[in-house]
C-alpha cells in the first residue's frame, strides 16, 4: 500500500470516529455554518464537538504548518482529506475570512511572530475576521481608497469609512486597507489589522435584496492602531491586498461546482415528473438543465485541475480570476434554473414549507457572486491584461 493509500485509510477511520452524524447533513441555512469568533453560539453540541475534533487534529486548516494550527498536510494529502470528507458529506468544521483570506496573506507576508499570534486563533475558530476594502467611492477602482491613517509616531489615527463589509457587526477583528501616503496611489496604502472593539469603530447593517443583512457600513473615527499591527511593509499594503484577492476569488469560485447537488436535471425530474420516455416532463427546461449539467461537470474538472496546479505553483498567478468569473456566472445560472424548476412554489418568501423562502433568497443572494471580491467585468479585464497580454488593458 502506498503512503497516500495508508493516509486515506487513516483519514477514513478518523472521520468515521470523529465526525458526528448531524455534521453529515447538508447545510440548510446560514445558521448551520460554523463561523467561530468570540461571540459565536454553536447551534448544537455536534457542531461544537466537530470543530474541537478538527482543531485538535489541525484539520480546520489542514495544509497550514503545524506551529500555526494546521496539520502540515501536502497538497496530495489535503486533496485526499477533502475527497474523504466529501464522500461522507461531512460539513466544513469552520468557515471564515481568516481561513480563506487573511491566513494565506499572513503565511506569505507575515512575520514569524505575526503568524504565531494571528494564525492559531483563526485555526481554532476563536477570532473572526472581516474585510475592510471597499469604500463608497472605491469599489472596482479599489486603489482610489480614501480612509486615512495619520502617523502619530508609535500609532496611526484612522479616519474614514468602509462599505459592504461582510459580517462587520459579528467580526472580532478587521483587516483593513488604509491610505498612509496621499501622494502615492499604489505605494501609499498600508494593510492594517485591528480589533473591532477599538474605540471609534462603529457598524451599521445594510439590508440586501434577499432580505438578509450580512454586510455593513463601517465607520472609523479617530481609531488608534499601534504601528506593529500591519502586514508586509508600510505603504506597500497593495501587494498584500492583491495577493489576498487572489485567494478570495479562488474561494468564491468554489460555488460554481454546486456543492452536493449531483445533477440539477436529476434533482428536478423527481419534483417535475417524467414523460412516458422517462424524460423530464418539460423538453425545453430539460435541455437547458442538461446543458447546464454539462457545464457544471466540466467546471468541476476545471476546479480539480486548477487546485492541483494552484497548490503546486503551476497555475498562472491570475488564473483565480478566470475561476471566479466562470464559477460565479455558473452559480447564477444554477439559481435561475432552480427558480424555473420550482415555479410558483419557489416564489414563497417566508412560509414554513419554503424554509423561509430559501430558494428565492438564495437566488437573490447569488447575484452578488459576480460583484463581491471583484466584478465579472473586472475579472475579464484582469484576464485580458495579465493572461492574454492584450494592449492597453
Amino acid at each position: 500500500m502506498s503512503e497516500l493509500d495508508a493516509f486515506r485509510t487513516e483519514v477514513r477511520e478518523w472521520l468515521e470516529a470523529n465526525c458526528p452524524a448531524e455534521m453529515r447533513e447538508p447545510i440548510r441555512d446560514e445558521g448551520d455554518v460554523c463561523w467561530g469568533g468570540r461571540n459565536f453560539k454553536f447551534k448544537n453540541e455536534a457542531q461544537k464537538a466537530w470543530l474541537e475534533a478538527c482543531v485538535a487534529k489541525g484539520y480546520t486548516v489542514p495544509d497550514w504548518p503545524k506551529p500555526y494550527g494546521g496539520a502540515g498536510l501536502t497538497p496530495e494529502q489535503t486533496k485526499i482529506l477533502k475527497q474523504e470528507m466529501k464522500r461522507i458529506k461531512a460539513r466544513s468544521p469552520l468557515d471564515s475570512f481568516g481561513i480563506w483570506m487573511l491566513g494565506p496573506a499572513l503565511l506569505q507576508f507575515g512575520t514569524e511572530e505575526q503568524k504565531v499570534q494571528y494564525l492559531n486563533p483563526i485555526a481554532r475558530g476563536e477570532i473572526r475576521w472581516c474585510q475592510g476594502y471597499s469604500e463608497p467611492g472605491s469599489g472596482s477602482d479599489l486603489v482610489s481608497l480614501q480612509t486615512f491613517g495619520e502617523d502619530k509616531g508609535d500609532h496611526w489615527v484612522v479616519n474614514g469609512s468602509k462599505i459592504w463589509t461582510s459580517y462587520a457587526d459579528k467580526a472580532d477583528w478587521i483587516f483593513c486597507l488604509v491610505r498612509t501616503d496621499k501622494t502615492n496611489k499604489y505605494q501609499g496604502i498600508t494593510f492594517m489589522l485591528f480589533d473591532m472593539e477599538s474605540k471609534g469603530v462603529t457598524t451599521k447593517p445594510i439590508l440586501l435584496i434577499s432580505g438578509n443583512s450580512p454586510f455593513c457600513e463601517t465607520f472609523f473615527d479617530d481609531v488608534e492602531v499601534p504601528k506593529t499591527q500591519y502586514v508586509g511593509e508600510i505603504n506597500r499594503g497593495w501587494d498584500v491586498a492583491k495577493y489576498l484577492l487572489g485567494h478570495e476569488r479562488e474561494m468564491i469560485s468554489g460555488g460554481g461546482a454546486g456543492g452536493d447537488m449531483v445533477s440539477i436535471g436529476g434533482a428536478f425530474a423527481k419534483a417535475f415528473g417524467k414523460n412516458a420516455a422517462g424524460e423530464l416532463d418539460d423538453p425545453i427546461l430539460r435541455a437547458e438543465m442538461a446543458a447546464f449539467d454539462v457545464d457544471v461537470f466540466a467546471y468541476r474538472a476545471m476546479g480539480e485541475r486548477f487546485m492541483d496546479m494552484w497548490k503546486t505553483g503551476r497555475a498562472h498567478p491570475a488564473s483565480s480570476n478566470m475561476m471566479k468569473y466562470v464559477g460565479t456566472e455558473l452559480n447564477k445560472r444554477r439559481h435561475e434554473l432552480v427558480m424555473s424548476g420550482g415555479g410558483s412554489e419557489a416564489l414563497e418568501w417566508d412560509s414554513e414549507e419554503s424554509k423561509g423562502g430559501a430558494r428565492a433568497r438564495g437566488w437573490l443572494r447569488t447575484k452578488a457572486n459576480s460583484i463581491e471580491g471583484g466584478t465579472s467585468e473586472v475579472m475579464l479585464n484582469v484576464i485580458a491584461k495579465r493572461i492574454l497580454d492584450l494592449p492597453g488593458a
Partner: protein
Amino acid sequence: MPLYHNDDQAMLKDSVAPFVAEQAPVSHLRKLRDSADATGFSRDLWAQFTEMGLPGMLVPEAHGGLGMGHMEAGIVLEEIGRNLTPSPFLSTGVGAVAALAKAGGTQAGRWLPAIASGEAIVALAIDEGAKHRPDRIATTATRAGNGFRLDGKKSFVLHGHVADVSIVAAKSDGGITLFAVPKDAKGLTADPRRLVDSSLASHVTLDGVEVDADAVIGEVDAGGEILDALLAATRTGAAAEMVGVGQGAMDMTVNYLKERKQFGKLIGEFQSLQHRAAHLYGEMEVARATVMKAQQLLDEGSEGAKLMVSVAKAKAGRAANLAVREGVQMHGGIGMTDEYDIGLYMKRDRALAEYMGDVHYHIDQVARMNGY
C-alpha cells in the same frame, strides 16, 4: 493523480508539438487540398508518425505497441488539431485500437501489430445517416455458411476508401456484432466525398459482403461493449483534437488583436473585444480540463468515464465552436478570405463537432445518464 501532465507526458508534448508544427503545419493541409489529393492524408507523414511510434501508442506492448494511455494520445491529437493536420491517427491509432484491444482474440492479433508498425489504416464504419445514432444500427449480419453476410449502408466513414480494414458495426440475431472487413471484400464499396474541411469521408455500401466467422471482433452479439469502448476512445480523441483546433484559433486571434490597428489603436485595446477574448479563454481552459479528466478516467478504467466522455465532447464542442466563430469575427474582412488560415479552423471544427455525436447528442446523453 493530479490533473496536469506528468514529466513523461510533458516530454512527449515537447517532442510531438515541434514535430507536427514543422512537418505538418496548416500549409501541409493546403497543399493536399490544392492538389486535390485523393488519399486524404500524406503517407510520407504517416511513415514519420510511425518512426516516432505514434500509431502504436495505445497498442498494448504484447502486440508491439507502446501501451500508453488516452492522456498521451490526447497530446498528439491536440497538436493535430492545432495544425489542422489531416491524419488517420484518430480512427486507426485510437478508435480501432480501443475496440481491438478490448475484444482481444484473432482480430486483435491480426491487426494491432499491423497498426503499430504503420502498415494498416483502419476505418470506423458506425454511422448510417446524417446524424450519429449508434443505438439504431440497421446494417444486418446474417449467418451464412460458416460465417456471416453483411448488408447495409454506412456514412461519414473517414478514410473508408483507403482503409486496409474497416470495423463495421452490425445488428446480429441477439445484439450488436463488430466485424473486421478487409478492403478487398466482395460487395464492399466506398464512395468518398470531399467534406467542408477538405477531408474525405465515404459512403460505404455492404451488399451481401461475406466474411468468415473469425472476422468477428470479440464475440457474436456481444459487440455492444466493444462498440462502447470504440466510441468512448474516439469521442475523447475528437474532443482533444477540438481543444487543439480551438486553442489554435484562439492564439491566432489574440495575436491579431495585438497587430491590427483601427481608429488609431490596436483593436486589442477595445474592451468589447478584450472581454470576449477573456471569456473565450475561460471556456477553452474549462474544455481542456474536462478533456483531461475524461482521458484520466478512461485510463483508470473508471465507471464515471462514460459520463465524462460525453461531457468532454459537448464542452470541447461548445468551446472550440466559440473560438472559431470569435476568430473569424475578430479578424474582420480578412477572416473571410481563403488565404487566411482562421477560416480553415472553422471548417475543421465543424467536421469534428459532428464526428461521433454532436453537442446536442452528448448533452442529451448526459441527461439520460443522470436519470432524466
